[in-house]
């Protein structure tokens, strides 16, 4: 009796365990595909309750003034950052970099084009070089802290939003709405992907143009697009890795770290910079097996190299070629041209020239150490070569350098034919010197070069350039990481990165020829020996 009851009970409990197991599986599976719940604010302050925010704001700087009544040091903190100054002195090279200084291969430079470019500056009113960088009220708190997605900086207003509804582009039917500043101010919170994205996803003049690993598809990416930021996965916001210290955001590519040797960041050995894979994963991230070669790679190969197999893979193309030399063409009626390819990608506009785009692009690879250098306005080059806009020091023998994946932007841009230097151009403005008004390169270049105090010979041409953009986003789930053969093969991804021995790719032709001659010679020798033996033994047998 006791025995059978016991049996019955154990059968019941078996069923019960099975049920629980099934239930957990179902819940687990659901949990895996269900988007993570929107992160609720854990702030100790409800900004709707602050009296200073319960007012009509005429302008956005008025909102900043209100913010500063409580956050008294915020603007002073911002004033120290690259986000504010667009200027950073590289600690190793001493080169002054940042948007304020460098010449890029997209729209060139901000000089004389301020009001257009500074629609992505975290300030208000940088419309010429007289901008006061010590102004506290001109710090834009809202662009980073808005949570309503209604606050937008107007494209040509030097960082201000529009205060009345108006169309952009001019004469178009697209109306930019003036934000309700009171509502926006009361709803501030921590920066979300959207906040960083309004500028960083659209760098270079449009969605996905510049970076290739940052575009609007990263606003709410699936896990398959970015394993860290995926809304159905970890749902990281940018600041999860780009950690901040007094509003100073880590992880600028001007000071990129080829190899983070700090290991996992924990209090006590934290370098206050989580913008590296090693900050969370350490420098031996893979499970140790008898073949520990994958962990061995971390000394020479950046994590990104294997874990970002392709970029521009969220459905938004990235610009790969920009040829300014073809700009300025009009149709018979003197109207601007705009051409698109079969994918709907814009391939020509009169203002900017010819473009090429790509999706699901395979990165190119190069050594990267912490040291980045930009081609400055006074640096001369060989006009018969392709000019690198930026270069990274590093190589196989440099212990601080590793192989990184890059988007390499290519194109043609104006240069000074007399001096063999890069030039900058005055593109944007209502004046007749502006290229986008008169389409006269010579005047546009002279205006910008004069404003920058740079020497211009008066004769321009177009030079092909490259610009390297290190990739760190769109990290694929681990199943999609590159297999060994992608590089360890005769014509793999690293075929062009020479100067070191890589198994599977490299060989000594001489040794291989000698080796195979020896092996085949031996085989031939024993075969011949064998045949002769058979021949003689038959002869013997036959008498």
């Amino acid at each position, binding site marked *: 009796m006791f025995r059978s009851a016991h049996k019955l009970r154990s059968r019941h409990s078996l069923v019960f365990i099975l049920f629980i197991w099934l239930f957990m599986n179902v819940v687990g599976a659901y949990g895996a595909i269900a988007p993570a719940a929107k992160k609720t604010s854990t702030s100790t302050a409800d900004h709707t309750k602050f009296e200073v925010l319960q007012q009509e704001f005429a302008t956005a700087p008025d909102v900043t003034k209100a913010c500063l009544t409580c956050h008294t040091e915020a603007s002073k903190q911002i004033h120290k950052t690259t986000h504010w100054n667009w200027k950073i002195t590289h600690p190793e090279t001493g080169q002054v970099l940042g948007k304020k200084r460098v010449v890029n291969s997209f729209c060139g430079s901000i000089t004389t084009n301020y009001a257009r470019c500074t629609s992505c500056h975290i300030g208000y009113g940088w419309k010429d070089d007289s901008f006061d960088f010590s102004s506290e009220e001109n710090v834009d708190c809202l662009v980073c802290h808005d949570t309503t997605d209604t606050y937008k900086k107007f494209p040509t207003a030097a960082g201000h939003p529009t205060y009345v509804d108006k169309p952009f582009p001019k004469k178009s039917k697209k109306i930019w709405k003036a934000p309700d500043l009171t509502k926006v101010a009361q709803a501030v919170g921590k920066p979300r992907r959207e906040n960083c994205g309004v500028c960083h996803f659209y760098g270079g003049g449009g969605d996905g143009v510049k970076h290739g690993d940052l575009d609007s598809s990263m606003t709410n990416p699936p896990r398959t697009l970015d394993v860290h930021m995926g809304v159905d996965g970890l749902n990281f916001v940018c600041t999860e890795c780009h950690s901040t210290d007094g509003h100073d955001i880590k992880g600028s590519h001007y000071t990129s770290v080829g190899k983070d040797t700090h290991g996992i960041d924990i209090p006590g050995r934290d370098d206050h910079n989580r913008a590296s894979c090693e900050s969370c994963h350490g420098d031996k991230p893979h499970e140790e097996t*008898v073949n520990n070669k994958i962990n061995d790679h971390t000394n020479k190969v950046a994590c990104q190299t294997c874990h970002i197999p392709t970029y521009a893979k969220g459905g938004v193309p990235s610009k790969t070629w920009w040829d300014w030399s073809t700009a300025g063409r009009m149709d018979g009626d003197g109207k601007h041209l705009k051409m698109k390819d079969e994918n709907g990608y814009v391939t020509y506009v009169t203002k900017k020239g010819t473009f090429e785009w790509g999706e699901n692009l395979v990165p190119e690879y190069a050594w990267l150490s912490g040291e980045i250098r930009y081609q400055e306005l006074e640096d001369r080059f060989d006009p018969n070569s392709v000019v690198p806009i930026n270069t990274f020091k590093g190589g196989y023998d440099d212990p601080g350098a590793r192989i990184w994946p890059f988007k390499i932007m290519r194109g043609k841009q104006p240069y000074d034919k007399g001096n063999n230097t890069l030039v900058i151009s005055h593109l944007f403005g209502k004046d007749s010197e502006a290229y986008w008004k008169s389409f006269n390169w010579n005047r546009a270049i002279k205006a910008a070069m004069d404003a920058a105090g740079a020497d211009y010979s008066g004769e321009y041409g177009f030079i092909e350039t490259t610009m390297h953009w290190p990739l760190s986003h769109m990290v694929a789930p681990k199943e999609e990481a590159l297999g060994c053969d992608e590089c360890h093969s005769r014509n793999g991804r690293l075929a062009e990165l020479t100067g070191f021995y890589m198994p599977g790719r490299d060989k000594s032709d001489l040794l291989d020829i000698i080796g195979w001659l020896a092996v085949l010679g031996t085989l031939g020798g024993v075969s011949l020996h064998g045949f002769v033996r058979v021949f003689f033994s038959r002869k013997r047998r036959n008498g």
Partner: protein
Amino acid sequence: MPNEMIYTRFERIWHWVLAILILPLLLTGFEIHGDYTMLGFEQAVDTHIIFAWALMGLLVFVIFWHMTTGEWKQYIPSSKNNLMAMLRYYAVDIFLGGGHPFHMTRKSKLNPLQRLAYLSLHVVITPVTWASGLLYLFYTSWGDWGLEGLSLTVVAMVHMAAAFAMLAFLIVHLYLAITTSEKPFGYVKAMISGYEKKE
């Protein structure tokens, strides 16, 4: 005349285990070198490393066995005259149906040419393979070992050269082992049973 035990049990075991290990090592090695694709690079490296460790484990026992039993003396080169006789046999007499100038006994298993061949295998090819292979495997530790100046290219070349030598050795070994006994596969059978058939 009774059959004589030529190869002891341990000797036979290590011979065949060695055979089982050497072949995949050569196959995966040449795949890692990029000469062909079968397992894929990662699997080839996994296999190569596992078999390499197994081989080194085996060879530790084999060396111990040679040392403690005195079997290492089998590899001491014999006189020049004996060597010439052996060369003459392979170059001339073998075709004419002449008899083998040496007879295998338990005490002297190896003919003068074999002595020289195996000696070079044991003191040149194998140690070079081990040393270059271990350096190759642990190249990230060179700094800790004070070997910063070493070049991976050189280490890889040496390892490859040793592999070619091993492959050439294997070809001659197989040819002689399979075909030169009185009846084909006679030596192979002896290496399985331990006994050499006497007429």
